[in-house]
């Protein structure tokens, strides 16, 4: 079980959290302008890196707030957690 540092509550066990998948996927500003391929990219394609992954977590059974994290998917070790809207201090291995 992972130990996750909620930016608002501190270290808590993983079972208090819900993982929300890859972070920083912005909904297209003008959805009608997108081609089918661009929609598929937005909806379905994921970075899935073997390495540092930027992902969303929700402290569902705690403060209830969403935040972001960088985690190494080989060691499952968290590099950092940071509030929604902020940028991480380190870079992920996900290619844009």
């Amino acid at each position, binding site marked *: *079980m992972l130990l996750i540092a909620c930016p608002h509550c501190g270290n808590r066990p993983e079972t208090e959290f819900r993982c929300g998948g890859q972070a920083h996927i912005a909904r297209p500003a003008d959805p009608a302008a997108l081609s*089918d391929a661009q929609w598929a990219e937005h909806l379905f*394609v*994921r970075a*899935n*890196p073997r390495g540092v992954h930027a992902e969303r977590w929700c402290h569902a059974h705690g403060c209830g707030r969403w935040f972001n994290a960088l985690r190494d*998917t*080989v060691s499952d070790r968290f590099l950092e957690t940071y509030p929604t809207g902020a940028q991480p201090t380190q870079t992920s291995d996900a*290619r844009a």
Partner: protein
Amino acid sequence: MRRFSLSSLLSESLKGHRGWGRQWRDPQPKPAYDVVIVGGGGHGLATAYYLATVHGITNVAVVEKGWIGGGNTGRNTTIIRSNYLYDESAALYEHALKLWEGLSQELNYNVMFSQRGVLMLAHTLHDVQSFKRHIYANRLNGIDNEWLTKEQCKDFCPPLEIAGSLRYPVLGGALQRRAGTARHDAVAWGYARGANARGVDIIQNCAVTGIRRDAAGAAIGVETTRGFIKAGRIGVVAAGHTSTVMAMADLRMPLESYPLQALVSEPVKPVFPCVVMSNAVHAYISQSDKGELVIGAGTDQYTSYSQQGGLHITTHTLDAICELFPQFTRMRMLRSWGGIVDVTPDRSPIIGKTPVNNLFVNCGWGTGGFKATPGSGHVFAHTLATGEPHPINAPFTLDRFRTGRLIDEAAAAAVAH
């Protein structure tokens, strides 16, 4: 390759079984092959076997970074069934099940395929309705599946607790009698032996580090830790690592890789006659021929390549096992392990062409790929040999995520499966 037969077994038993020799060669990679398959699991080896036997293409290499069958092929709970809801899936998995039924004879290798029946338990009214819908859909597709009352479930699987006092009482179950289990290692070894005998090179401890492309963008070979290997066509069958291999050709995939865990108990005498699955309380259990209870747990909620998962995932499954089978509450668990499964958004596999010429992919089998091994290899071999999909894998394109023609078994099963 020496055939296994009664006479060869008898003569070897008199000679202390010292004359069998290696079942497949350990060759150096040649500079070029007609087809290079990336990934020496069951699906990759089956692909090589059917390329050689069905299509006569024997100048084939299977490149494996570890040892064959050492990934998810050797880590799964070996459940085989074909009772999927949608026509496309039913055709694919039934194709595999029919190949399973003759596989030991075909390969001259005992894969210990045992059609002991898979019983899927219903615990809620929604389960009952959903399973009956599956049963009717399966029958329309010529696939056996039948409804059992809870008393019939108890007759079929005596260790099952059907008391109404359970938190999630058993209301009945869907039984596919032709479903069952097989010996996972033997599947990899049998296909490897058969492919090797027809000239396929199985190259272990050789990791692919790059995919080389020509000026037009077509794939022309793979860079490996043992040098460059030229390839007419490349088939990537890399399961949980598909995203990383495809990234070598600058392709991004609709895949996420999750840890999936399983565990076995101490071995005991035959006590469990079938396979029981409960999607609702998340328990998957059968008994191996060695006597161990083989138990499948769920995936973790986060993507990972660690090949291990959280202990709370396995304990959650064991809670369900103990509730459904009270006689196992004092069993001790012997080993647990994890594998990395590549999951698509619609929980159906991707088998076919990619936007890169000469590069093909067979991936996205998620948590249930073992059952499809022969069928997957058979249709992927057709795709690699002809350049076009077999009718059975034609719906399972990468392009379906653009067109929207998803095969949504995730929604059909209402759970991860």
